[in-house]
């Protein structure tokens, strides 16, 4: 279960690539794990490392020393496309990322992120460009992500409002999970099942 999502302030990691797919976030060969541990080392693995395991030069943005400890990723359009692997948000949160800003997110990635205390924040294209400009001009600019108020505070006292699913917001703020909610619907589910016989039986001898 995730910790409650609290307001936080961080500098920004800019990653201007478009359509970053989850195969880049965590390459498939790291999906053979049976737990969630150790995935930080798999994060953007093939963009960060050479064949021999040494860091690429110039270093990928995550490995640049001044990026250490930053919790906000500013990504290009349509982040998280492709595979449904939840290993992507697991790896991002293991690295320490708590919010991602982009113009849009792939559906499954967004859903997976919200279940792991990782906040996807969609901003419109013009504001997205301004954010990249801001980080280019002031690489150490700090943003504050306030989920409760649904705003990102920008330097200069500017607020960037954002939309979030109200239910997901409640879950994130409370640090509760959807499974707990669904388990609380046992009576309704049982009633539905009684009225709707299963359409198949995988246990039946075919």
């Amino acid at each position, binding site marked *: 279960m995730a910790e409650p999502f609290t307001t936080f302030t961080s500098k920004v990691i800019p990653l*201007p*690539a*478009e*359509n970053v*797919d989850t*195969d*880049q976030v965590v*390459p*498939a*060969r790291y*999906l*053979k*794990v*049976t*737990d*969630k541990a150790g995935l930080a080392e798999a994060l953007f693995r*093939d963009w960060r490392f050479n*064949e021999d395991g040494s860091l690429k030069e110039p270093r990928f943005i995550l490995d640049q020393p001044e990026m250490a400890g930053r919790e906000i990723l500013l990504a*290009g*359009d*349509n982040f998280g*496309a*492709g*595979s*449904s*692997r*939840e290993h992507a*948000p697991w790896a991002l949160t293991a690295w320490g990322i708590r919010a991602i800003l982009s113009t*849009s*997110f*792939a*559906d*499954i990635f967004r*859903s*997976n992120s919200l*279940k*792991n205390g990782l906040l996807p924040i969609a901003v419109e294209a013009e504001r997205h460009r301004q954010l990249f400009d801001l980080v280019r001009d002031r690489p150490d600019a700090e943003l504050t992500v306030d989920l409760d108020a649904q705003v990102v505070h920008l330097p200069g006292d500017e607020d960037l409002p954002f939309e979030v*699913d*109200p*239910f997901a917001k409640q879950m994130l703020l409370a640090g509760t999970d*959807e*499974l707990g*909610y*669904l*388990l609380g*619907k*046992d009576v*309704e*589910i049982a009633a*539905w*099942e009684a009225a*709707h016989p*299963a*359409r*198949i*039986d*995988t*246990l*039946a001898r*075919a």
Partner: protein
Amino acid sequence: MAAVRCYPVAAMTPPRTIVQKIWDDHVVTQEPGAPAVLAVDLHLVHEVTSPQAFTGLRARGLRVRRPGQTVATADHSIPTHDRSLPILDSMAAAQVQQLEQNCAEFGIPLHGIGSPNQGIVHVIGPQLGLTQPGMTIVCGDSHTSTHGAFGALAFGIGTSEVEMVLATQTLLQRDPRTYEVRVDGRLEPGVSSKDIILALIARIGVGGGTGHVFEYRGEAIRALSMEQRMTICNMSIEGGARAGLIAPDDTTFEYVQGRPHAPSGAAWDAAVERWRRLPSDDGAAFDKAITIDANALEPMVTYGTNPGMGIPITSRVPSPDEQPDASQRRALERALEYMDLQPGQAILGQKVDVVFIGSCTNGRISDLRLAAEALKGRRIADGVKLMVTPGSDEVKREAEREGIAEIFKAAGADWRESGCSMCIAMNGDQLQPGQYAVSTSNRNFEGRQGKGGRTFLASPLTAAASAVSGVVSDPRALPGIESLAAVGGR
């Protein structure tokens, strides 16, 4: 979209799309402001996205609520060479073993290695008759959209959601928006359903369908066999749509009837009567729409590093200078650098090292029949490696019964066991850095088929034609192409 939509004033409900009908049939309950609790009819499980979900169940002391609506297989990380040998990769072996333990402990039927029903999860569902119209189907795999070909609402989920479905047989979902994809006209010989979906994604981009469910309609869709329909629905996710479906019709019913888990007798008649009410009502409104002219489609091939970077096979690689903005220019420059292709170059004639025929996109028997027909009496080019991995054990047996396997072998192909294989390259089947592949799979992302590997996505016919010539080739140049289109079967 049509400006005027007419329906009888007396109708009890406004016209609904098939998506809305399936949705309405499966909402268990919904609180104000909350997503719907959506019942799941069929939950498919595989070794890669399930271990942490079972761990979660154990931690909470939960059981699997409906094992009889759940089925598992091992497909992603398993080897596709001799199955009598142990799995050499210790992590893959441990993952497969954990799936076996989890299924035994929680009472889930498993079609694992050695089972005659083993295969890629999206191949065996339809094959066993588990995939049926009107169902909700989920799996921890984005290509679950495949099952939409039967008029089911089928979509990929993450591992947290796998745990929820295991525990409650439900999911929390917001109702999706709908996107009509109308494909009018008729496909020319040598052009297949793979080319339709690659053309769609090239037009709308990999994020074009985000937040939506595609409904594929129109004359060209109706004319497709079930397996060709599965190819289209399979790649809905590559256009950003979590699901894509096709209303069921006689083609669907004929495919389902007689399969092991299909209803029979009076139950069959009742099911068909129910399924006939599923298609979208006349006048049902879609949130978005696009029309594609099938007559104008050519075989498609990708040149870049996402499935939206596709062109008609006779076209030239686009130039970054022609891109509308700096961001897309950068993206294309990066893709061409990775692919080591030049702006404006022809894609036809591009050297190929490996040809891969298989995957949940194009690993079914009709895909193999088409590729084999194109390869009959021919040899693959020197220096080219052709890998053929059947989508399931049953597809493999059928191909061997029909003599297709012999055609592949005689052509010089490596005829393998079933599995995801080089589509995801988790199991050692992979490209070497710098190699080019024509692949019938679904993703050409950087490193997808092996670190540094370069993928051209294309149809089975294009793959077979390219294997023969050793370069990217137009399948319409194959002798007898007019008769090939009919080979696939149902």
